[in-house]
């Protein structure tokens, strides 16, 4: 059994981080250059970590599977980033941001981590502005804010509908500066295919160059994974097509615990599925809910055009069910409400899987130009995909997979249970509990990279002798490389008759039906039969054309889908074991009469961290109790 020591510092909640920073070990400036740190991934968390560590003087090697670090999927975040600046004078504070985030996560995150996140949120905005991120401003030149779900203050900073892009380009520019200065050794088109553990500590990675096929070994004093989330296990999601679980999954297979893998975020406002060929779903930012009103017909099977349905026959169900938060109810709650409406036969569009997001009132109140200025690019995206104008008719939206709160288990220092392996951003499990609030992912990625890891990695490295990292021809490296080569050879040799995409689609369907917005014991048990059967079919009949020594996108996908097959099974196992409903994890057996989540704090007020036991063996479920010292786990109420 793995030991899961959260290493939460003692003392009052608001003092923990400050106290911890003054107590953890430091590495002196002249010694920093003797340590080499590997950073895998260059989204918000990876770029900010790599550039900050290089700025401190560490030798940094950064690996990204994209052709440029600027392509990471953080770039697609639309709406904004939260920070407890209280620039609006509307009563915000670090404590409120902490509380909203903890409550938003349905009391399944650690208090101390979430409080730290709220504390450093203010530094993130300062840092980004200093880098030249062009946040929206008011005429007086000061920063503007908007509102997001699960909050009753305006604390979200934004750059039109492209906040993630601007923040990532800020972090990318910081990373570029360090690459230009020779302080970061950047490897693009480089996918991590294994973690190398030597003497129980993470000491390197195995990398495949996606263009040449070359496999290489890289040794280091510490390894940071900032490789994002695993929502593509569902095939259809708002993730980029390349987003995958491979880096964290291979680390899991080397002993890192996977925490709460079943916590998945289904975002309520995405463009509905249109056909079987579809490769991805597109998000319509939560910011639209500042001005858009969500509704469905009151009557089931009402096929009239939206304009033909009179006010009295419309159900603005979020406003009706959650009057204090209205259309800005948190994502998990808004998604389930949409699903219930569609299950009642009140869904709209040709598929019946959609509800309306209507801007008529906002256009009437503010005028079309003002709406265009706020949301123009989102309306454009909607038009490109559906060939419909949201200025004239309401958008049709439906929930889609958007984020994964689960990830590799980390302690307060963001170190996994494998010493020397740190996990940042969406790849870890730490801050969002069972449901992430909007505009919090960007906050967490940058908090981890700019303001947490620069402190906490020193505490680990100070205990490592400079120059003690293993040679890259150590037996552990040779073994890991042989394993990677073995897998590649197996894929190419299978020569079956079905493309990788066939299996990804099938897995996605199982996951969406059995482990999506609503989960049942019977469904999850069925999935635990179906997925292994699909894996067998994959191993026997996948077709991976081409060779290993060139750009081979089928080969890349095969490796990723193989890992998704394993991960999907673990997600179902986790969802089956967690006999409660919380946040994004909704077990139909555990709900109140009004359909709200029924948590079981007594039995499940803990983190489930799964530990790999070997091929074909049932993993071990470790737990870390969530000890709330300062907050009461209460019933989440947005009514």
């Amino acid at each position: 059994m793995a030991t899961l020591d959260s290493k939460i510092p003692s003392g009052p909640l608001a003092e923990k981080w400050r106290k911890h920073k003054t107590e953890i070990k430091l590495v002196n400036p002249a010694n920093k250059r003797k340590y080499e740190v590997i950073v895998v991934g260059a989204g918000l968390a990876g770029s900010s970590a790599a550039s900050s560590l290089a700025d401190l003087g560490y030798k940094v090697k950064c690996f990204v599977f994209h052709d440029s670090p600027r392509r990471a999927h953080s770039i697609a975040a639309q709406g904004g980033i939260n920070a407890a600046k209280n620039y609006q004078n509307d009563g915000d504070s670090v404590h409120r941001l902490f509380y909203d985030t903890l409550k938003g996560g349905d009391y399944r995150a650690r208090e101390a981590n979430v409080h730290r996140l709220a504390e450093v949120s203010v530094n993130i905005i300062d840092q980004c502005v200093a880098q030249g991120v062009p946040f929206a401003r008011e005429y007086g030149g000061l920063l503007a804010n908007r509102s997001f779900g699960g909050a009753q203050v305006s604390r979200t900073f934004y750059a039109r509908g492209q906040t993630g892009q601007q923040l990532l380009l800020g972090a990318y520019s910081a990373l570029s500066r360090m690459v230009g200065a020779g302080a970061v050794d950047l490897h693009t088109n480089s996918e991590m295919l294994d973690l190398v553990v030597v003497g129980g500590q993470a000491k390197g990675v195995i990398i495949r160059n996606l263009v040449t096929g070359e496999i290489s070994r890289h040794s280091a004093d510490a390894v940071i994974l900032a490789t994002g989330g695993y929502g593509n296990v569902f095939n259809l999601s708002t993730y980029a097509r390349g987003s995958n679980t491979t880096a964290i999954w291979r680390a899991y297979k080397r002993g890192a615990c996977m925490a709460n893998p079943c916590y998945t975020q289904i975002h309520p406002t995405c463009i509905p599925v249109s056909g079987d060929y579809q490769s991805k779903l597109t998000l319509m930012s939560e910011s639209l809910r500042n001005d858009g009103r969500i509704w469905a017909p009151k009557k089931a099977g009402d096929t009239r055009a939206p304009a033909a349905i009179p006010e009295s026959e419309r159900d603005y169900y979020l406003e009706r069910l959650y009057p204090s938060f209205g259309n800005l109810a948190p994502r998990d709650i808004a998604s389930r409400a949409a699903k219930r409406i569609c299950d009642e036969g009140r869904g709209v569009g040709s598929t019946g899987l959609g509800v309306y997001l209507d801007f008529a009132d906002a256009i009437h109140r503010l005028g079309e130009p003002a709406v265009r200025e706020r949301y123009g690019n989102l309306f454009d995206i909607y038009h490109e995909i559906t060939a419909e104008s949201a200025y004239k008719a309401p958008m049709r939206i439906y929930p889609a997979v958007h984020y994964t709160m689960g990830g590799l288990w980390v302690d307060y220092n963001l170190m996994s249970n494998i010493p020397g392996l740190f996990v940042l951003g969406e790849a870890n499990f730490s801050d969002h509990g069972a449901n992430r609030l909007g505009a919090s992912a960007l906050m967490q990625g940058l908090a981890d990279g700019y303001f947490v890891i620069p402190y906490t990695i020193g505490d680990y490295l100070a205990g490592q002798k400079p120059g003690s990292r293993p040679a890259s021809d150590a037996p552990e490296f040779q073994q890991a490389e042989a394993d990677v080569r073995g897998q590649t050879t197996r894929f190419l040799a299978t020569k079956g008759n079905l493309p990788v995409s066939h299996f990804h689609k099938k897995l996605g369907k199982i996951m969406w039906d059995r482990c999506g917005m609503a989960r049942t014991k019977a469904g999850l048990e069925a999935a635990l039969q179906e997925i292994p059967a699909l894996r067998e079919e994959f191993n026997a009949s996948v077709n991976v054309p081409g060779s290993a020594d060139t750009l081979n996108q089928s080969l890349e996908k095969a490796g990723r889908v193989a890992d998704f097959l394993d991960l999907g099974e673990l997600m179902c196992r986790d969802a089956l074991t967690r006999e409660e409903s919380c946040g994004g994890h909704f077990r139909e057996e555990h709900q109140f009469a009004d359909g709200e989540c029924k948590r079981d704090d007594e039995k499940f007020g803990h983190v489930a961290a799964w530990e790999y036991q070997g091929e074909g063996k049932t993993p071990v479920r470790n737990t870390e109790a969530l000890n709330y010292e300062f907050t009461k786990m209460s019933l989440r109420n947005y009514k």
Partner: protein
Amino acid sequence: MVAASTLKTFSVTLRVWRQAGPAATGAFVDYPAKDISPDMSFLEMLDVVNDELSAQGIEPIAFAHDCREGICGTCSCTINGKPHGPGKGVATCQTYMRSFSDADTIVVEPFRARAFPVVKDLVTDRSAFDKIQQSGGFITARAGSAPDANALPIPKGDADLAMDAAQCIGCGACVAACKNASAMLFVSAKVGHLGLLPQGQAERDRRVLAMVNTMDTLGFGSCTNQYECSAACPKLISHDFIARMNRDYLTASLRSAFKPAPANTGGGAA
């Protein structure tokens, strides 16, 4: 889920550039694309064709893509001679098959430019853009040393104009559209974005000189002011930023010519 069959589908011929590797000789090859739904994206159509090629034992067409929502800048096809295809202000991934008609022959090639060598089929190496960024496309701001974000008010107009430039997705369509394969729109967007902001003033001269010089050494051509670049830009970035950069470059050159070079740019050694 709607059945694709309820929509009117059609068929096209794809004339695709196939090239096995950087050193190989490439050629156009025709493939049929059948039962295409008008609601498919261009890349989803390529997915369908690729699955069929796989089934026939033909290696699928390599193409660059990732976010499929027009923001990551990975996708990069020249479609019927136009970078990112027929639409205005969209990337390849935001091009939908409803832009084409039954029995069309659609010519698909990689972005062509000396500075963007072909890696395979439709995939090119655009690392030259990263090198330009690394030479100066940043504001030096170490984490931990920033003043309060509202300490420096920025007029809304300046911030909005900076944002117009900052939207660049780094796809390279501007280069592919230019007969000289010039990177002026790309470079000027970054120079303009950072140069418009008060935070960007300290390194303004250095930035424009370094980025333009790097661009010149990487094999991009010169700008002859025909603005094919902004017409092809998926974010519709204006060529006005090129004029702005030319002015910045000139003033920075003059200032650096008449200013003694600092003795040591590496910081204090004491």
